[in-house]
């Protein structure tokens, strides 16, 4: 006990000195104050005895002299207040890399111990060597972008061949401009290209595309001649002049576009035996209008005890101003990442080695595996590293890390079973529950106030946990309809929303009030369709965008009855009356336009009293008064 006290004092000499000095000073001033009161009281007694005064009332020390006693106390209070009010610094699990020696030391120290373990030969590690491994949570999408955008004059459609800039003529449309996708000159032939989406921000058109690279033998080892995320910003007022171009090197993990800010997470794997002399060549970089910024070794941070095999980069771009920020972290490629417009959360495994492993070669030197959750803040166009927190359990290797409405839900694997933990935006625990007998867990999803846990390849819901203001409450019965909801679409200017849920056999569309009451339902029995006609529901990701307040669109795709390869597109239009019920309008059939389905299948726009049904091949127009009848169509070819 006494030893602990001495140890504490030794380790916190500065703090202890401040506390002791403050207390001593307060004691001294307090004593002086008391002496002053006593002496003046005695003076007045004396004066009364000398019959100079009529009573013994005496002057108290002035307010200034009294307050002086409390100065050290106030100082001490301020010291503690400042100590605790300063943004908490959870950098315990971080290490600055600074130079090549530290980098190599981190790498070799970890690997010398880690690669002597049974884990060394596991699939999880060997697949990294192929350079194709992706982090498990890698979404490869940029949320907030779509393939169709619209401003007051034009419609922008990103299909496989480029971005079509469409303006409306008298009776038809015209392609005003066609913006080709970037091409990258590279010796590696096998590259795949994806357009990730476009958006309009004032007079700027933003496009994000991604070049991935597979089996590129020539460049193996030099990771960054490989995949790139390319962001192009065009000025719509200046004949689509290229205003800015950013090329972010590395595997695209995911991104988010909101309010004119684009944040992109990408990663680059280090080669198996990094060469100290070539370290910079492994480092991620951003090229902004031909100016390349390579991640600086001195700015690099390492999340301690994680496998140092990946350089994870976050890039934040302000589309209007052209300002960007770029941060890189050395960590394990098996990370999980979630982001919203203000924060990015990163979960990584941290390995605690047996101390004996520093001296002896052990069969399994790993004592335990922890989880480190790191938080990055996105503020004022800058990326700030905010904090790290370590947890004794490890996050389930499947998708057990989700962020929804600033609530971070993490599914940990503990010795007692699975533990679902809810964190607030400061990574402080709000609530947690223990889930026993959770087998074959596959996915965690937040739907309409509940968390659902799914198992198996069919994603069968096995648990429903209600999320209240500050509690997680496991429910005895599972709402299967809610669990199979593929999307919730809030209808503009109303309190109602449309929930679409799909199983193998049916499709259900519910009109839901703000109190989660189902007001009306539309069910489509997929069995009604000819068995030889596989029916697919288009992705409905962007369906709520630009929603006309009284209409909801349900696009379907089915094989033509007499064909094995020709698809027919149709759109079920549901009008919503009085925000209470669906009216099923005639089905719109989108025929006679070559309808490729990449990179999207169907979108719609509302333009005046007309509906534009957009496929990558062309536009079909229907009128609000006759929803089933295509009155115009326009092919891009």
């Amino acid at each position, binding site marked *: 006990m006494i030893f602990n006290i001495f140890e504490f004092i030794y380790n916190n000499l500065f703090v202890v000195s401040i506390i002791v000095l403050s207390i001593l000073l307060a004691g001294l001033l307090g004593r*002086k104050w008391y*002496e*002053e009161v*006593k*002496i*003046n009281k*005695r*003076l007045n*007694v*004396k*004066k*009364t*005895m*000398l*019959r*100079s005064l*009529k*009573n*013994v009332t005496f*002057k108290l020390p002035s307010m200034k*002299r009294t307050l002086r006693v409390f100065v050290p106390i106030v100082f001490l209070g301020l010291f503690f207040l400042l100590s605790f009010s300063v943004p908490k610094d959870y950098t315990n699990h971080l290490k600055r890399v600074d130079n090549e020696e530290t980098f190599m030391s981190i790498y070799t120290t970890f690997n010398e111990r880690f690669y002597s373990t049974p884990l060394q030969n596991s699939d999880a590690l060997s697949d990294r060597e192929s350079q194709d491994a992706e982090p498990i949570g890698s979404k490869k999408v940029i949320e907030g972008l779509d393939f169709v955008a619209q401003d007051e004059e034009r419609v922008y459609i990103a299909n496989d061949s480029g971005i079509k800039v469409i303006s409306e003529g008298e009776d038809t449309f015209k392609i005003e401009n066609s913006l080709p996708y970037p091409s990258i000159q590279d010796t590696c032939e096998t590259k795949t290209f994806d357009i990730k989406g476009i958006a309009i921000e004032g007079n700027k058109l933003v496009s994000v595309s991604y070049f991935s690279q597979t089996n590129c033998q020539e460049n193996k080892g030099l990771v960054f001649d490989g995949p790139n995320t390319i962001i192009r910003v065009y000025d719509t007022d200046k004949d689509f002049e290229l205003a800015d171009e950013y090329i972010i090197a590395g595997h695209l993990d995911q991104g988010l576009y909101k309010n004119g800010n684009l944040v992109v997470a990408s990663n680059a794997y280090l080669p198996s035996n990094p060469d100290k002399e070539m370290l910079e060549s492994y480092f991620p970089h951003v090229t902004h209008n031909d100016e390349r910024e390579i991640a600086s070794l001195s700015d690099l941070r390492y999340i301690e005890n994680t496998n140092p095999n990946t350089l994870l980069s976050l890039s934040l771009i302000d589309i209007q101003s052209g300002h960007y920020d770029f941060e890189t972290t050395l960590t394990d490629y098996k990370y999980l990442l979630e982001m919203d417009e203000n924060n990015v959360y990163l979960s990584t495994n941290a390995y605690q080695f047996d101390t004996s492993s520093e001296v002896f070669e052990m069969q399994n030197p790993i004592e335990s595996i922890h989880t480190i959750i790191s938080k990055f803040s996105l503020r004022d166009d800058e990326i700030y590293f905010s904090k790290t927190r370590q947890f004794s359990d490890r996050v389930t290797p499947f998708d057990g890390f989700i962020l929804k409405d600033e609530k971070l839900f993490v599914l940990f694997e503990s010795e007692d079973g699975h533990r679902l933990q809810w964190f607030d935006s400061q990574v402080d625990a709000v609530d947690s529950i223990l889930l026993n007998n959770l087998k074959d867990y596959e996915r965690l999803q937040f739907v309409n106030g509940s968390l659902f846990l799914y198992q198996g390849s069919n994603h069968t819901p096995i648990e429903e946990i209600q999320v209240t203001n500050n509690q997680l409450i496991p429910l005895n019965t599972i709402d299967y309809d809610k669990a199979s909801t593929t999307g919730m679409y809030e209808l503009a200017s109303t309190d109602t929303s449309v929930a679409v849920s799909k199983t193998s056999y049916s499709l259900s569309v519910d009109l839901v009030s703000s109190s989660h009451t189902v007001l009306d339902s539309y069910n489509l029995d997929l069995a009604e369709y000819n068995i030889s006609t596989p029916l697919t529901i288009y992705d409905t990701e962007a369906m709520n965008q630009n929603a006309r307040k009284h209409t909801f669109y349900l696009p379907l795709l089915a094989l033509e009855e007499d064909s094995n390869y020709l698809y027919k597109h149709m759109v079920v239009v549901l009008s919503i009356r009085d925000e209470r019920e669906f009216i099923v309008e005639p089905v719109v059939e989108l025929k006679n336009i070559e309808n490729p389905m990449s990179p999207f299948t169907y979108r719609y726009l509302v333009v005046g009293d007309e509906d534009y049904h957009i496929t990558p091949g062309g536009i079909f127009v229907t009128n609000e008064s006759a929803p089933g009848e295509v009155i115009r169509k326009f092919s891009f070819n």
Partner: protein
Amino acid sequence: MFKLKVPKHDRQRVKDKLNIVDSKEYEYVVTTDETMVEKDKINIVFPEEESEKVGRILDAIVKGEDIFITGENAHGIKHLESRKIHYFMVVDDEVRAFLSNASFIVKYKLYELEELLVDKYFIRVSKYALVNINKIDYIKPAFNSKLVLQMRNHEEVEVNRRYYKAFKKTLKL
């Protein structure tokens, strides 16, 4: 100096009327009850209705006859009532008496004044100053074992470290 001896229930009232403060060491017993007299002390026995008169007698006992000191300044010579003098101080090898708004040079040495006024509520506070206790408005302890006396004329006189204990003893602290 005084010990008030009256029945308990009358004590506070009589005490207020006489403006008397009891002290442990006393020469006078002041009482309304002749059975309470102490033979080895001077006893003042009085009926309560004569409290006002007795108060004046007590004043006279304490204050006695005032001592006059002769002082001079640029305006002339003046007899100074010692009770009106705030303090004496040696300034430029001259002893000066400081009153509310004026100061006078007196022809005494400071130690002579101390001897003269020792029973008249004056107290030596430093090698250079003699202070009238009744004219001290407030005492401020300083950190260096000194006291700063704020006089009623808003001037300050310091109690020297050497006289600190004696000063406190006088105040019976």
